């Protein structure tokens, strides 16, 4: 289930459970396309940019991250609306992407990906043998 309305991060419904007793969030995404690239922005507040993994396997783009909350010393929680958890989301891309030129940046809790489209392979001429 993806929560697209309002504020919340949706929580994933999955067949396999996580080993950690923490929620798995589906980061909300904006995806748009230009003539030569696909752009993906994901909301991942609290994620450590060094621990975000982005993989492109065949045509499946998978993003994972983890939001960590600092537990301040000498403070006790009195109200909680969000908690730490994992971020996971994957997309099946309809177009071939040049995996070597993917650019990723993380700023203010937003992961921005630029996925340049692969150049189409030049047409090959095949000669016909005749004997």
């Amino acid at each position: 289930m993806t929560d697209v309305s309002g504020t919340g991060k949706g929580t994933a419904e999955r067949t396999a459970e996580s080993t950690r007793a923490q929620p798995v969030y589906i980061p909300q995404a904006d995806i748009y396309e230009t003539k030569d690239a696909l752009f993906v922005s994901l909301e991942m507040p609290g994620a450590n940019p060094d621990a975000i993994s982005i993989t492109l396997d065949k045509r499946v783009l998978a993003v994972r991250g983890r939001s960590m909350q600092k537990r301040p010393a000498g403070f006790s929680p009195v109200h909680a609306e969000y908690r730490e958890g994992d971020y996971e989301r994957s997309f099946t891309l309809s177009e071939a992407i040049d995996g070597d030129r993917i650019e990723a940046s993380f700023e203010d809790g937003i992961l921005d990906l630029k996925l340049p489209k692969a150049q189409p392979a030049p047409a090959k001429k095949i000669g016909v043998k005749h004997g």
Partner: protein
Amino acid sequence: MIRYTPGVDLWGEPLATLRRIQDEINRTFNEPQAPAAEYPALNIWRGEDAVLVTAEVPGVRMEDMELTVHQNTLTIKGKRAPVATEPDVSFHRRERTFGSFARTIALPFNVDPDRVQACAENGVLTITLPRPEAERPRKIQISKA
């Protein structure tokens, strides 16, 4: 005959009652009791001399946010900007919301507006609100008569 509801019968099952209270406390923290109906989602922490508020504000720039403190209320106002794109793009998904937001919360005690500090990291805003010097709890020495 007076009937006690089992939940409040402190004498019958003191351990069970304690366990139930403990469960309730654990649940309060482990499962957000108010799963972010309002934006931004907040966590509030209380210390002896200060209260700490953290808010998830991905994509909101610090200069687009405004904090107001009055006695024991804190107001967070801000604006989420839509993604800036070139003119000829086609959107596949547009799930992130944008626009202005405002949220006011009551803090556990009055705070000193001059010493409020706020910083943002990875899309999480942390606001530290210290208690005024005059209102801090004080230890009283008991003197012998």
